[in-house]
């Protein structure tokens, strides 16, 4: 039984329709995002099922997960707060912003908050250099940008995420 195929038949059909049928391996990246939707990470079983759908091995699928930064093979934080500290952002205080944010959350850079909800990471350029400090939030449903941030506005956002989860 292929759980992904059972759960997302319409989505999978739409994804496969984008590529020539003889090149369906091209669907591996969108299918990985689909598999990540629920837990913000990909399980071994997901990789096997994607391999089965595309007629490639689970190892080949795993190589894609390993190569690209936005796929994860482990659960760590339902929300990933990814702060850009690359050169142009660093020139506008992004490193200090990141460290103060982590200090306020009581974690170190790269760690997840004790409630298991928010992981704060340092990432490479996000094409928001003119609105630093900035970060993106990644969850299973995609990514959203937050620009011209202060530690206060970032904490407010994170508290909002926590409140939303609390209600569930």
């Amino acid at each position, binding site marked *: 039984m292929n759980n992904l195929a059972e759960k997302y038949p319409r989505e999978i059909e739409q994804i496969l329709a984008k590529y020539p049928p003889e090149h369906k*391996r091209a669907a591996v990246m969108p299918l990985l*995002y689909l598999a990540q939707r629920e837990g913000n990470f990909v399980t071994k079983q997901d990789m096997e099922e994607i391999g089965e759908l595309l007629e490639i091995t689970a190892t080949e699928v795993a190589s894609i997960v390993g190569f690209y930064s936005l796929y994860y093979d482990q659960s760590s934080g339902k929300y990933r707060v990814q702060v850009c500290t690359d050169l142009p952002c660093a020139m506008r205080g992004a490193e200090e912003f990141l460290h103060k944010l982590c200090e306020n959350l009581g974690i170190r850079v790269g760690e997840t908050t004790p409630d298991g909800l928010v992981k704060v990471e340092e990432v490479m350029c996000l094409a928001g*250099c*003119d609105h630093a400090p900035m970060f993106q939030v990644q969850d299973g449903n995609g990514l959203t940008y937050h620009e011209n941030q202060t530690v206060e506005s970032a904490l407010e956002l994170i508290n909002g995420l926590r409140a939303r989860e609390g209600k569930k």
Partner: protein
Amino acid sequence: MAEYILLRHREISDIDQLEVYRQYAGYEAFQKAVSSMQPQEVTEMVKASGLRGRGGAGFPTGLKWSFIDAHNRPHYVVANADESEPGTFKDREIMERNPFQFLEGVALCAYAIGAQAAYIYLRGEFWQIAASLDRKIAELHSAGLLGDNLFGSNYSLRIYTHLGAGAYICGEETAMLESIEGKLGQPRLRPPFPPSYGLFGKPTVVNNVETLSSVPMIIAKGVSWYRSFGTEKSTGTKIFSLSGCINRPGNYELPLGTTFRELIFEHGGGIPGGRQIKAIMAAGASSSLIVADDKALDTPMDYESVPSVGGSLGSASVIVVDDSISIPWLINKTMHFFRHESCGKCTPCREGTFWMMHLTDRIQAGQASIEDVDLLHEVANQVKGKCLCALGDFSTEAVSSGIERFRADFDQQVIAREHLEALSPTD
């Protein structure tokens, strides 16, 4: 700037709505092309316009289109929306604010090269932009501007978005093709080039978002109109992404050939805190460090002139460096970036970025000797020219030029270490 060619939303704020875009002659160029022009005529116009690739390489766009292998079909267009160079944020503004002009550019390119399918490869972080483009593409289908038998002709076209997942290397055109095919984003050996062997092994044109977005206005308003902007060899306008130590960071659309001084001091409002400008990186983190003296500041920003002051225009992502910035710190930042983004295929890049990063870590930490600086320079020289794609070379640009042109900054880091040793001999 009297007239916008690309950032037209700054004058027409709701140009991201299809009906508004069409009120301002949107899709007339595409309709004219499909209804009354041969595909080759479109390519010839783009050739005559002098438009050059805006992603960084500056290759003549029409010439690239003319290389497409007519005997091998189907053909594909791939729009490069991977925008990942530190300091570059122009394609994002086009796609967010003036998306239909970009999509019309994709369509014109597809018609010119006889492609019936086009893929827009967006970096994974542009998730929201991809979702928005998907909605715009659906609108175009409903309006009869995409799909089968367009304008009563036998020409059909579909446009698809494809999201990357966080890999700078996928901005390199052959790595991008591999990535769409569902493989690791690693560059291919060239030749063959994509116009003969591209996506799924078929003839393909890969163009940057800004390049494609320039095309509708060229077809609509003509070659001589377009050539009235810019210089003889660098025609048209370009979006300059201005960032770093600058009062007003942002995108500025200006004619090619505008001086650094005008961009930085007139448009960008100069350097904050009364500090002095020290260096300019004209092409993002992949730049050499140009010493910001009067000669450099008065240099026109076009493809021919920037090399005369030891840089290159690239994607025109101008990072301004002021005198509060230490060059060892700066190259440590760029090396962390390239170390992370090296795809690992070519040994000189994979190993070179690793060792350069560690050397810059040591220098930055004040734990390096003067020999380490020379070793760093040597490693950079060993990487240059030895890799399949430009990433390896890019990683050395700031390192080599930093050591050659700002040696005093490095000597200071080394001297600081000797002081440190004197203070704590046990260390």
